[in-house]
């Protein structure tokens, strides 16, 4: 039940939905570009600190790295999760369905931090354990929603598709997947939102990303660093999330009206 209920949208009725992703994105770019020049403002937060602008790496490179890790993980999770869910709903893989469904719903109980923490002893520090942890954790909502979406497809529709002489592949491609798409997309959205957040915690295990300034700020008691990291990453999350919101809306309108 932990995937989002998509009917509650972030946008207010009088602002067109397409505005939000653009707005967040614009603010994100402004942060990345503007913080190095905003020493005066940041100085107000930390009047006593030696440095207020985060200089160890440019925010742009941290953002790039963050996005890279999350996208690689997302690519693997989407492909892997959907394939797994499709496989266990086919005739041959049906034996595995109860187990996979159970694991996918049980696995979401695992706190992402714990998964990340457990990946480090097994794989060491750096980017690899983060990607593995993100993949492990991010696959679950996708598997779960793909399963849910595929199982929600009206049995009569499926059986009439077979009765019309569609091959199993045609049924999957032309009927099941398009009808399950909104639910699958909601799963992808959940997965990626969680992964953006979890990847940031990965800064504590030596990955260089937008979590870095926050951790550095907490360790050094430098509020200015924290603000730079926190604002950037929050805007990144909002941009991506509102993009998905928009995508879901497009999909909904395509599915329901002429």
């Amino acid at each position: 039940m932990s995937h989002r209920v998509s009917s509650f949208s972030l946008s207010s009725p009088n602002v067109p939905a397409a505005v939000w992703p653009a707005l967040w994105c614009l603010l994100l770019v402004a942060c990345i570009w503007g913080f190095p020049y905003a020493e005066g403002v940041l100085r107000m937060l930390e009047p006593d600190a030696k440095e207020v602008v985060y200089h160890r790496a440019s925010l742009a490179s941290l953002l790039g790295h963050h996005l890279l890790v999350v996208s690689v993980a997302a690519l693997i999770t989407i492909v892997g999760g959907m394939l797994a869910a499709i496989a266990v709903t086919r005739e041959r893989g049906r034996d595995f369905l109860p187990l996979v469904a159970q694991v996918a719903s049980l696995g979401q109980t695992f706190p992402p931090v714990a998964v990340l923490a457990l990946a480090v002893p097994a794989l060491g520090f750096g980017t690899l354990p983060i990607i593995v942890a993100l993949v492990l954790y991010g696959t679950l909502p996708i598997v779960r929603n793909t399963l849910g979406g595929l199982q929600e497809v009206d049995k009569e529709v499926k059986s009439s598709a077979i009765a019309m002489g569609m091959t199993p592949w045609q049924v999957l491609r032309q009927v099941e997947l398009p009808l399950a798409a909104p639910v699958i997309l909601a799963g992808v959205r959940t997965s990626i939102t969680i992964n953006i957040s979890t990847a940031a915690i990965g800064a504590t295990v030596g990955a260089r990303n937008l979590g870095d300034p926050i951790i550095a700020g907490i360790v050094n008691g430098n509020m200015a660093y924290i603000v730079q990291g926190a604002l950037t990453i929050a805007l990144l999350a909002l941009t991506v999330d509102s993009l998905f919101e928009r995508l879901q809306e497009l999909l909904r309108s395509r599915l329901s009206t002429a």
Partner: protein
Amino acid sequence: MIELSHVSKRFGDVAAVDDISLHIEKGKFCALVGTSGCGKSTTLRMINRLIEHSDGEIILDGHPVAAYDPVKLRRRIGYVIQHTGLFPHWTVARNIGLVPRLLKWSSADVQAKVEELMSLLGLPVGEFAHKYPHQLSGGQAQRVGVARALAADPDILLMDEPFGALDPITREKLQDELARLQSQMHKTVVFVTHDMDEALRLADHLVVMRDGYIVQQGTPLSLLQHPNDPFVESLLGGLERGLKQAALTRVKDHMSPMGPTLPAQSRIPAAFSLLQGLSMMLRDHTDRLTVVDQHDVPVGELTLRKIVKEAQPEQGKVRES
């Protein structure tokens, strides 16, 4: 032609269909009737191999169904179900054109066929082609369902309680249209229903099933006249059986030549049923009707005595001829 010989279907230890044999002539309309869970739908679905039979043999056009490739077999058999099973994400036109496109018809052919079927089923192309299933009423959706089943010109049409979810008025209208279509197209139809009146109206051959086996089969009239089992008799309406029989018999076949007496005031067209004649007599407090042809010219007369005494014909039913 469809031939089922000693066909059974077992799910685990339970026999859903138990040793049934059935012969359906090409171009005939066969109705499977029975209470829910009697195996009629299972029987239907074994014909297009949505369910594989466990025993016996099902033969289509001289070959056992097991020998056909199931996908190709299904593309050659129309299939209509109660809740239509239309694809909610496709327009009406795309839904109807499904099987022709699966069969790789050219898009012009598909479009022509879709338009032909839509007008055949009373769905104006301009109004409906681009609608989605959720924008249709139940009756309209089922018309689309029937059109989709007919799209690739199948010889065989399987219908699983197609009108079960519709209101009585829409249902009757669609029954009439199905009868009209069948009189033009002469498909081999297997029709599952629990509504005996529907079956009596439409079928050439009636099969009554219970608990997975066939209780009785034959023409509707022969069943009405000689139900061999209390169950069949109750399905056929018990005491009202006589009226149903009268409904299936035409005035034309029972009128006597014009007598020497004055023609009766009330007139009835020759194509009407005996039941309608009887009703007219009750209405007009008379026991005599003048039978007229389509030009309102008297051709004979119908008496109550005749209806009561001689409603035992071997002739066909209303729809034939």
